[in-house]
């Protein structure tokens, strides 16, 4: 993985020192909240419902064991013993004291981490496929490009005060696990007919109160022109994006108001000018960054592990874990292991300090010292030899981390909602917990198959409800929580936004409503091979709507 050079280290250390001084001046009263707020937000410190919240950047979701141990240490020493992994592959601490934040940032700097650009109208943490560099289906590792974008965008003087925040995602595989079509810019690594590496370019996707699927404005952008093209897009946005209305300030509004032809023309015109300034990536620089992300030295093994097969034959729970949570690796005899942070009835994305320490230990012993955070709020051990799976599984199970539900109905994304968030209009986590308990960990969840439920506690859509196969949006109506349901959304390569079923449901009724949707799917699917999304796309909304609202359904 990428290691800081002397400039990176010095820069981060200086920022911590500046923030220490700013915090001291705030606590002494020298700075007012109005003066201080911008500084704290630029260092990831928010004020939430119960306390301050610190959001720490995890670049493209990649962690070393040392870094994860540090995150555990911070949870234990400065928080209440846990952290919350987010839909942007970051971690949030819910209870730090303001006076401790400079010390936390010092601790983070000691393991080459920080909280810069995790807030504000700048280019945020660049996200990527959590299986990057390991997945059998990838064209190329997206992380070097995400790292190049991170370096270029960090404190970019022209782009520190954009009209609104700006999010870039990169995938290296045709199967999109990084939700690139609901980002401001999405890059997909592709090869052209000559075998050259480049990118398909998507722009103007996003969720929030005005969800939009990105437009594809380039089929093939040569690798060397990545920064020039990004510069062109962000410059057009910086000049033309609206600053008069916060709710119309994201690039998606500009892109969709201008239309594909006009936005493409504007970006291409700017791109030609940028190329004149010679902002091309030297091949040597690309290779140097790629060398940080070289595939670990994994000895090729037989694709079938007798150790694993023997255990699977006698242990149904292990068999299910391997079937559901282990994905093929590009090196034979290895697997990519998803560690679910969605125990049945648990809080999606939460991990205790002890769990983080355990995962760090397992990564050190069995996964080339690497951990990933997924935007679906799980952790990943990317490089596990199949022969080691029984040992890894046993250790995970002992720490309540072996729930075999990756991609299933109980693998729910949920934002913090009204339990923590100052912006929320309703709770998200308790709804996720009740749905999880309703469907459980047994045969029923497996019988339902792949089904992604995503829950947001307000229209800002941090819980990605617009792209849930079943999306749930929590709102407040006359002082009471109410939940709208959408169907048919997905953030994969066939990206689509969900459609509202109709009137919302009370907190008491929403889990029944979800179960009604699931039962309807089971009754209309052709067979078990037709997953929820395919079934919905074939039959449409009608049978679901009928089941929910006719015959005295639960709708209010």
């Amino acid at each position, binding site marked *: 993985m990428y290691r800081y050079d002397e400039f990176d280290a010095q820069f981060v250390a200086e920022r911590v020192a500046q923030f220490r001084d700013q915090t001291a001046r705030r606590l002494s009263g020298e700075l007012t909240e109005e003066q201080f707020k911008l500084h704290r937000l630029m260092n990831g410190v928010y004020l939430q419902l119960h306390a301050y919240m610190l959001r720490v950047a995890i670049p493209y979701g990649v962690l070393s064991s040392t870094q994860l141990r540090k995150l555990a240490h911070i949870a234990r020493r400065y928080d209440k013993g846990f952290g919350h992994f987010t839909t942007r592959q970051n971690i949030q601490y819910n209870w730090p004291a*303001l006076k401790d934040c400079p010390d936390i940032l010092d601790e983070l700097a000691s393991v080459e981490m920080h909280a810069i650009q995790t807030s504000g109208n700048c280019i945020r943490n660049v996200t990527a496929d959590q299986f990057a560099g390991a997945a059998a289906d990838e064209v190329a590792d997206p992380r070097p490009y995400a790292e190049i974008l991170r370096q270029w965008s960090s404190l970019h003087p022209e782009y520190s005060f954009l009209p609104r925040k700006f999010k870039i995602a990169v995938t290296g595989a045709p199967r999109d696990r990084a939700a690139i079509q609901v980002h401001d810019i999405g890059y997909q690594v592709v090869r052209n007919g000559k075998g050259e590496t480049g990118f398909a370019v998507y722009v103007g996707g996003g969720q929030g109160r005005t969800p939009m699927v990105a437009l594809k404005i380039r089929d093939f952008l040569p690798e060397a022109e990545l920064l020039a093209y990004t510069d062109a897009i962000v410059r057009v946005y910086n000049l033309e994006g609206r600053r008069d209305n916060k709710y119309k300030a994201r690039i998606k509004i500009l892109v969709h108001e201008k239309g594909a032809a006009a936005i493409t023309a504007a970006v291409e015109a700017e791109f030609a000018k940028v190329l004149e300034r010679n902002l091309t990536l030297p091949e040597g620089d690309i290779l140097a960054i790629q060398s940080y992300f070289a595939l670990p030295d994994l000895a090729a093994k037989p694709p079938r592990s007798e150790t694993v097969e023997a255990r699977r034959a006698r242990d149904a729970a292990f068999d299910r874990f391997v079937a559901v949570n282990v994905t093929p690796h590009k090196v034979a005899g290895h697997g990519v292991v998803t560690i679910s942070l969605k125990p049945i009835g648990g809080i999606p994305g939460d991990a205790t300090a002890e769990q983080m320490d355990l995962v760090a230990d397992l990564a050190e012993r069995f996964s080339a010292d690497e951990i990933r955070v997924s935007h679906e709020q799980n952790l990943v051990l990317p490089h596990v030899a199949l022969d080691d799976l029984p040992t890894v599984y046993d250790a995970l199970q002992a720490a309540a981390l072996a729930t075999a539900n990756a991609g299933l109905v109980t693998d729910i994304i949920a934002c913090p909602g009204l339990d923590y968030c100052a912006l929320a209009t309703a709770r998200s986590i308790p709804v996720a917990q009740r749905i999880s308990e309703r469907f459980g960990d047994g045969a029923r969840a497996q019988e339902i198959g792949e089904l992604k439920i995503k829950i947001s506690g307000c229209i800002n859509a941090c819980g990605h409800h617009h792209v849930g196969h079943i999306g749930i949006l929590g709102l407040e109506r006359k002082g009471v929580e109410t939940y709208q349901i959408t169907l048919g959304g997905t953030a994969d390569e066939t990206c689509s936004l969900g459609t509202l079923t109709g009137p919302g449901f009370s907190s008491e009724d929403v889990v029944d409503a979800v179960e009604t949707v699931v039962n309807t799917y089971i009754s209309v699917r052709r067979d078990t091979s037709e997953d929820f999304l395919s079934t919905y796309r074939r039959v449409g909304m009608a049978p679901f709507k009928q089941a929910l609202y006719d015959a005295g359904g639960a709708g209010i």
Partner: protein
Amino acid sequence: MNQVITASRLSDGTVVFLGPDRAWVERLAEAAVFVSPEASAAALTEAGGDERANVVLDIYAIDVADKAGVVAPIKLREAIRAQGPTVKPEHGKPR
């Protein structure tokens, strides 16, 4: 509508309420309840001095009702602020 004055403590963000002796208290049960809009407005103005003195921030009044002898916020958001996350009561305030 009866009201209570609330804010966040500057040093750690803890939710606090204005007490009867104008000190900030952590528990809603110990908060001063203002029974008229005038009293509430006057308390809010006075409490503003603590924002300028950098003791607390984001001071505002919330509506409360008497529920079986216990002061309870009308809005769910304020009930959660007063008590802590409903999903982790052990991290919230003692009842």
